[in-house]
């Protein structure tokens, strides 16, 4: 059953240098209990896309009139982008949708105890007494593997280690029992050993709470370990999407192929690392045609410089936007 539907999402930022396109005509949908990996390098628009789901982008954000985000809640569909007042927005900001950020130290208020922050948001989103909210919070801290939860409840963020903080963050995000969890690089700042623990925890929680997760990361290994399906973004475009096995084992877009080739692999130490040539262009200088053509090693002809490729289906749910797969080469 569909949990969230994103249709033709186009988002520009109004800046001193003019309108900057951050997300360009992106559509996808996510089902209950499904984990979607959103992949791309910095500047590809993955965080901006995810924040749109909470209508959380800065004030200078301009959504195109065709953009539509529909969240299916127990009380019927919600048109996310039409929400305006803080009260209306509650449903996508901590109510039915929660978010985990990359840097947990920056996400907790430093001068308020972890517990107080958890209680505050629970009371904001649900009809709980202080005592009930405290019990739920401690239970949740315990659930995410924080030892001595009732003691941690009264501590400040700086008293916890990085891994503990990220667990507390997860506990806080999940205590309101959201239907959709957005995890923005939740393991990037952690050590591999702790990352492995957090990934395991998140997998357990998905099966237990049966929620949908949008997992933003630039680490394809993390995607392979967590996601059911993968969406690859580049300069605001969705360039490839499909089931995780398909995309990782049989990538179709030259960019996805490049990302996989650039990864240092432990089982092959002899072959040299192959970087994707060049840098991601500034959003102020968006290339014409296919946005990737400036770095692509498989340009098929002038068509790449002039025509923006449309997404086409390769097989099943595996889709790619690249001229290589045009039926009649132009």
């Amino acid at each position, binding site marked *: 059953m569909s949990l969230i539907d994103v249709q033709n999402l186009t988002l520009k930022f109004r800046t001193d240098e003019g309108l900057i396109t951050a997300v360009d005509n992106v559509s996808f949908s996510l089902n209950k209990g499904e984990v979607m990996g959103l992949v791309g*390098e*910095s*500047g590809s628009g993955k965080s901006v896309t995810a924040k749109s789901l909470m209508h959380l982008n800065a004030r200078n954000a301009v959504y195109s009139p065709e953009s539509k985000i529909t969240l299916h809640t127990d009380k019927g569909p919600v048109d996310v982008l039409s929400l305006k007042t803080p009260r209306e927005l509650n449903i996508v900001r901590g109510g039915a949708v929660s978010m985990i950020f990359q840097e947990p130290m920056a996400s907790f208020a430093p001068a308020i105890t972890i517990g107080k922050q958890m209680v505050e948001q629970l009371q904001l989103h649900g009809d709980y007494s202080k005592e009930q909210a405290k019990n739920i919070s401690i239970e949740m801290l315990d659930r995410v593997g924080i030892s001595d939860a009732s003691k941690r409840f009264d501590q400040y963020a700086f008293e916890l*280690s*990085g*891994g*503990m903080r990220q667990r507390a963050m997860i506990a806080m995000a999940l205590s309101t029992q959201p239907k959709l969890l957005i995890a923005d690089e939740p393991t990037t700042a952690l*050590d*591999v*050993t*702790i*990352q*492995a*623990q957090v*990934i*395991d925890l998140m*997998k357990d929680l998905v099966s237990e709470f049966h929620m949908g997760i949008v997992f933003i990361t*630039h*680490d*394809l*290994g*993390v995607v*392979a*370990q967590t*996601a059911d399906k993968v969406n690859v973004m580049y300069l605001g475009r969705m360039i490839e999407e499909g089931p*995780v*096995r398909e995309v*990782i084992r049989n990538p179709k877009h030259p960019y996805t192929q*490049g*990302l*996989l080739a*650039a*990864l*240092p*692999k*432990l089982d092959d*130490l002899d072959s*040299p*690392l*192959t*970087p*994707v*040539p060049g*840098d*991601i262009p500034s959003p102020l200088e968006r290339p014409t045609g296919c946005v990737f053509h400036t770095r692509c090693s498989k340009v098929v002809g002038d068509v790449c410089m002039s025509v923006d490729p449309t997404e086409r289906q390769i097989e099943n749910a595996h889709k790619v936007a690249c001229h290589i797969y045009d039926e009649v080469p132009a």
Partner: protein
Amino acid sequence: MSDVLIRAKGLSVGFPIGGGLFNKQILKAVDNVSLDIEKGSFFGLVGESGSGKTTLGRALLKAAPITGGGAHYSDGEVDYDLENITKEQLRDYRKRAQLIFQDPYAALSPRMTVRDIIAEPLEVMGLTKTRAETDARVREIAAKCRLNLEHLRRFPHAFSGGQRQRISIARALVSAPKFIVADESVAALDVSIQADVLNLLKQIQTDMGLTFMFISHDLSVVAHTCDHVAVMYLGRLVETAPTRKLFAAPRHPYTKALFSAIPSLDPDDRGTAQKLTGEIPSPTNQPSGCKFHTRCPFAIDHCKQVEPKLETDDTGHDVACHRWKELMAPQAA
């Protein structure tokens, strides 16, 4: 043949923390580390945050106080004992040993042009006499790091992460150093760019005959770039070996755990690996015996009481674990 550039012997770095006049506590960030870094090698240092890898790197640059043991630097031109280096020698050592930082966004002054950033070490150290000489040197190094003349006139904000890291590298290289510590120098970069910077470092190393100490938490990156790897845990060296040996047959349970924590690219290979529980203990409250015993699945009573020594063998594969031989045995059979 195997010339040693830096030899650390029982090197310790401690920082005084809290406490009163009579019960001053010392936090030992690096404890009794001995290692040899061979000339022209790419030496990797891995471990979790809090393992002391950055502090060790800084101690070898004489940028952290050496409180025990010492380190000897010898590049054929000069010989310095880092633990009691004179001011005069230190000034010279700064030219010979350089550091590349992790975050290329924080490491570059936003108010200086790229040319000035790269030229600053030359001016501070008085390595060039005229402006023309400085400019020539800056251009030469910039070209090595694939920065063009147009780039030199701009400010850092105009550059992407990968380009900024190339600027940091150029700045570190401009004084023609012999030894470079690269502290998590690719950790902040996207994979597509990371490969590019790693290839550049490797190429520079071969071209200029440099010796690198490469600090990283990413084992797959280390596997691809380094010749020799040392694994640290809570200030101790727990295992060190030539890269291929280490990756083919890791001996210390901690090293094995680090390997199994790397997320596999195979979606069907989920959660089979043996995961490490818990976190690295605080250095102010260190466990007795083997520092790893609190998280080690193979710890026995002996491990809690006696700290294992680093056992050296003739293949250069050293490990500090009471039980490594036993633990390796079932795999061999």
